[in-house]
């Protein structure tokens, strides 16, 4: 449910660092809470992502949630597939359902303060 190679934030986003590019999406728990995702509003390539701030919105039929970036940096890619197939967020939250890729300034410290998979699981157990 919560891959150990990812890091997690308290807003239920995950991040995977590959060199200096961080891929960001929402967790299995988050997509389950939302229900069927019907729309994802993503930023444009070239926009700036700021850690802890909103980079987009995700909608189910009767809810809207903001998406928060766990890291700061320039957005270098967005997942265009979600426009036509938002359900990918439900079906494959960690792979096909990713949302944005962000080039971070300092890869060594970019994920500082984020949770490990075990910590995140304990966190959501407390939230439920």
């Amino acid at each position, binding site marked *: 449910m919560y891959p150990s190679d990812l890091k997690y934030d308290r807003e239920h986003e995950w991040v995977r660092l590959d060199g200096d590019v961080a891929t960001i999406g929402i967790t299995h728990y988050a997509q389950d809470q939302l229900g069927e995702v019907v729309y994802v509003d993503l930023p444009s390539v070239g926009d700036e992502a700021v850690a802890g701030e909103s980079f987009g919105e995700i909608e189910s*039929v*009767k809810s809207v949630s903001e998406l928060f970036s766990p890291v700061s940096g320039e957005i270098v890619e967005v997942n265009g597939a979600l426009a036509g197939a938002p359900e990918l967020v439900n079906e494959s939250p960690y792979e096909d359902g990713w949302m944005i890729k962000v080039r971070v300034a300092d890869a060594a410290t970019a994920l500082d303060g984020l949770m490990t998979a075990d910590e995140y699981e304990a966190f959501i157990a407390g939230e439920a």
Partner: protein
Amino acid sequence: MRFVPVTCEQRERMLAAIGVRSAEELFAPIPEEARLKRPIALPEGLSEVELAAELEALAAADASGLVSFAGAGCYDHYVPAIVDAVVSKPAFFTAYTPYQPEVSQGTLQAIYEYQSMVCALTGMDVANASVYDGATALAEAALMAARVTKRHRVVVSSTVHPEWREVLRTYARGGTIEVVEAPAASGVTDLEALRAHTEGAAAVLVASPNFFGCVEDVRVACQLAHDAGALAVVAVNPILLGVMEAPGVLGADIVVGEGQPLGNPMSFGGPGLGLFAAKAEFLRQMPGRIVGRTVDAEGKPGFVLTMQTREQHIRREKATSNICSNHSLNALAAAVYLSAVGARGLEGIARACIAKARYLHDALLGTGRFERFSDAPFAHEFALRYHGDVEAMQSAMLERGYLAGVHAARFDEALAGVVLFAATEKRTRSQIDAFVEEVASL
């Protein structure tokens, strides 16, 4: 009259089940100082017989059944009998908003069909389930254009109905948008002057026919808007869309209008309905309810309220509007009306209005008591300057059973002496001849 079916004995049983001795105990949380310590100071209730007589007496104190040449946003069209037969069905008028689609398919499908008809008339891709009226539709369109363009200032032509412009300015009081008015020349928008205001604007708002009944160059107005990166918002009269080009074809991004002429009685100005339609790309910024077609769990076709995340009950302070209703029953009337007349009927009605307005216009000018206000082409309404005291003329004509137009001075002192006349398909040649003869004899 009394609509409480619970008997005294039943009420005692209910109180016992609750565990209180009197209803008063249930109101205990109301602080003593705030309480109303006297009976409500309204007259006692009436029996239905008495009430009916009182209501009839009030209605009889009004002059109705006048031969009307008044328009200015509210028009005396014929309402086919089938319209009232449909909107009088309790399953339609006693229902709430169709939030439970399984038991609301009647309302939902009727709205979907209404939306389809509004799209057909306006040449737009999507329409909402209606808003309160044409004026609030215009204001909502301005707010929507500001969201779409992320700009702040809207430019409205001063030939748009003065009350609509005032509603726009009132909606703007919170600082959410800034309203600039573009001047008119001889009853139509001064397009060159308009161009001077468009830079950086969120929207250009025009009406055609406009307040004076004149036909605007919508194509050019839309082009001016687009040249500046603004949205083009066009207000229409839906009856005239039977013969007038769909604004969508002319470049409009949002089309609004007052839907009252479509099968709704004048009713002293309300309720009518606000038509609201837009291009598909702006769907997510539209205000108001929208119905969509889908399927149920067994694959049967069905309808639901959709795109609800735009609305206040979900998005709260970030919603596209605070509107929490639509004029559903009036939209139903409009849909039944449009079904009843069809495209050919609508064209015929529009042609009849235009022909009668032209006939009236020429006849009034022929009396020598009026002069032209504008040389621009007009449809079913026009403005003339009266040589004389307009109020006295209208008053004298009222005594003779006529509504002699609308004096534009009620909106703007600068328009003293200018009278708006409208003619619908209901007016006959003999009524017009008699009216003009009476006016000439004053």
